[in-house]
């Protein structure tokens, strides 16, 4: 089991040797990354079976917690690891000529694995920063210089967010004297005061920069507007979720209090409304998708604000759904960029792609029997069970957002099914691998529609298990800390 640390170490190793390998054979350097990711996938699968319904902790350096760094392995973290490996494989830069870019992708995946697995607050910060730096690099490396400018602007706000995150960590450390999340979970009463919750707010908003949280997501449109669509699929589909995973870990293990939930609820609602409103005015696909993505991350925060295992399973479901749908849409957008008017008649040029597009959109809107519907239904019902003004408001916001979303999405669909003008041929008609993957995503979506019940049951199990601080604490901490209350 200890070898699971290789999930994170192997990509790092690959990242370090790729520049040297590239001096001998650029082909070999190109293939190093995918090979490593495939090995990781195998590792994840075997670990998935081995972990079973339990959980496992890896004590790095052999130091027992809380003094050392711990990797916490359960199905939740393995699920994310699997997604990371697959997603990076999907968007691997096959046509890039730069070996250092491969390194950056490997660093990105290593950081992502670390974020998924680590159970140490500062370690999470380090991986968060590594993720950030790799992301800046990948964005900045795009051919157009506007990507560099977008990356720079992203860097400023994201670094400021990281400093907030660091301040939050400092406050938590000052209050408790530990960084291990399981250890923190045993002394929540220290942290549920104003200072502790402020630390949570700082962490949530700091990490929220990457998670496209409401007030700090102005980078989204700029960055997604300048980078290739596959990369947008990666950022919107996965990287944003990893920042959310950081927030989830803090929220579920340490900050299960109403004030924290309310905070997430409010930013979630604002994100939903603002995202949908702006997407409604968008006139090109990428901008529309960017803001729609913001809105859906908002829905995710609303789901998290339910708290406990219910909130977590909904959040996982939303993340997976959003990964498939938004990832798929961004991958599709590779072919259909540009002003909406240029998409006129697309359905006649390529009925298949229009159909795939439609499947994504319908699921996004929550049309039964697609998975999106069940998620929305479960979310709304859970919010209703909680009751209370803010939660009812959240229901209203989600449903209102659906209406707005219908309006703009179907304006686009309508355009696609219009008769084409004689001279308008959709852009980028060439075949692309990302389109194939988009079709695959759509297929997955349809398959999951059939298996909605078993999948949701599985997710609920995972969430029940992962959202339980007691399991977490007992897995991670040695016995002598268990009874200890600060």
């Amino acid at each position, binding site marked *: 089991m200890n070898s699971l640390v290789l999930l994170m170490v192997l990509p790092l190793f690959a990242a370090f040797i790729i520049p040297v390998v590239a001096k001998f054979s650029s082909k070999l350097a190109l293939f190093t990354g995918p090979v490593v990711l495939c090995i990781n996938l195998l590792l994840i699968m075997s670990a998935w079976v081995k972990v079973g319904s339990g959980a496992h902790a890896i004590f790095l350096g052999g130091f027992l917690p809380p003094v050392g760094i711990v990797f916490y392995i359960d199905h939740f973290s393995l699920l994310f690891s699997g997604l990371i490996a697959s997603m990076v494989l999907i968007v691997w830069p096959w046509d890039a000529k730069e070996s250092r870019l491969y390194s950056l992708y490997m660093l990105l995946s290593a950081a992502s694995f670390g974020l998924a697995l680590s159970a140490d607050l*500062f370690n999470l910060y*380090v991986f968060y*920063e590594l993720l*950030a*730096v790799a992301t*800046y*690099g990948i964005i*900045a490396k795009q051919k*157009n*210089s*506007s990507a*560099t*400018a*977008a*990356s*720079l*602007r992203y*860097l*400023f706000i994201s*670094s*400021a967010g990281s*400093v907030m995150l*660091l*301040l939050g*960590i*400092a*406050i938590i*450390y*000052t209050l408790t*004297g530990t*960084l291990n999340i399981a250890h923190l979970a045993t002394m929540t009463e220290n942290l549920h005061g104003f200072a502790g919750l402020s630390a949570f707010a700082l962490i949530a908003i700091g990490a929220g920069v990457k998670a496209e949280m409401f007030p700090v997501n102005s980078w989204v*449109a*700029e960055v997604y*507007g*300048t980078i290739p669509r596959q990369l947008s699929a990666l950022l919107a589909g996965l990287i944003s979720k990893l920042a959310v995973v950081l927030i989830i870990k803090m929220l579920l293990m340490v900050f299960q209090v109403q004030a924290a939930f309310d905070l997430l609820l409010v930013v979630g609602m604002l994100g939903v409304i603002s995202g949908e409103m702006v997407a*409604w*005015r968008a*006139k*090109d*696909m*990428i*901008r529309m998708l960017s803001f729609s993505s913001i809105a859906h991350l908002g829905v995710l925060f609303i789901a998290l604000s339910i708290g406990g295992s219910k909130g977590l399973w909904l959040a996982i479901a939303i993340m997976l759904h959003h990964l498939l749908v938004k990832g798929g849409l961004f991958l599709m957008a590779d072919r259909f*960029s*540009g*002003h909406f008017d*240029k998409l006129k008649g697309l359905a006649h040029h390529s009925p298949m792609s229009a159909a795939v597009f439609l499947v994504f959109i319908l699921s996004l809107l929550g049309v039964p029997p697609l998975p999106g519907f069940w998620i929305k239904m479960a979310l709304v019902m859970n919010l209703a069970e909680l009751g209370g003004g803010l939660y009812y408001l959240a229901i209203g916001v989600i449903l209102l957002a659906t209406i707005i979303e219908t*309006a*703009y999405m179907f*304006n686009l669909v309508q355009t696609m099914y219009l008769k084409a003008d004689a001279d308008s041929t959709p852009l980028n008609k060439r075949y692309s691998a990302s389109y194939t993957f988009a079709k695959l995503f759509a297929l997955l979506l349809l398959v999951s529609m059939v298996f909605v019940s078993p999948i949701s049951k599985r997710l609920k199990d995972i969430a029940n298990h992962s959202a339980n601080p007691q399991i977490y604490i007992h897995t991670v901490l040695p016995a002598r800390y268990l009874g200890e209350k600060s």
Partner: protein
Amino acid sequence: MNHFFTVEGILYFGAISLSIIGLFGLLVSKNLFRLLLSLVLFEAGANLVLVLSGFIRNGIAPIFLDGNSGAVMNDPVPQALVLTAIVIGVGVQALALSLIFRVKKHYGSMDMRTIRSKLEREIAENAGVTPPGSNEAPAPVKLIEGENS
């Protein structure tokens, strides 16, 4: 109040002020280079806060030397963390600087606002639409184009 005018009180004050000055710089500076300097200050302040979290009055440096076996040591963990944070900071700083070089070369300007509007225009051009907020932008897309009824 009696706690404030102590070493740690003063230092917390200094750390928060340093962060705030950095943040203020991030808010009001237009020049990219100065934004970078402000970011450095902001990070430095946070680092100081982190080190302070391990501070003990009358503690000694966490190094085992022959003479100090009995004394109380400062918490070594925050120091290690700050070590990491400082190095991360300098990496990001160098990265930002290299991006600034390229941005300067491309846009010929160091003004964040100029760059933002140029960037916005470029994005819009790439997408084939008019930039948001521009005067020549057509009226917003109607939600529903109803006809006369």
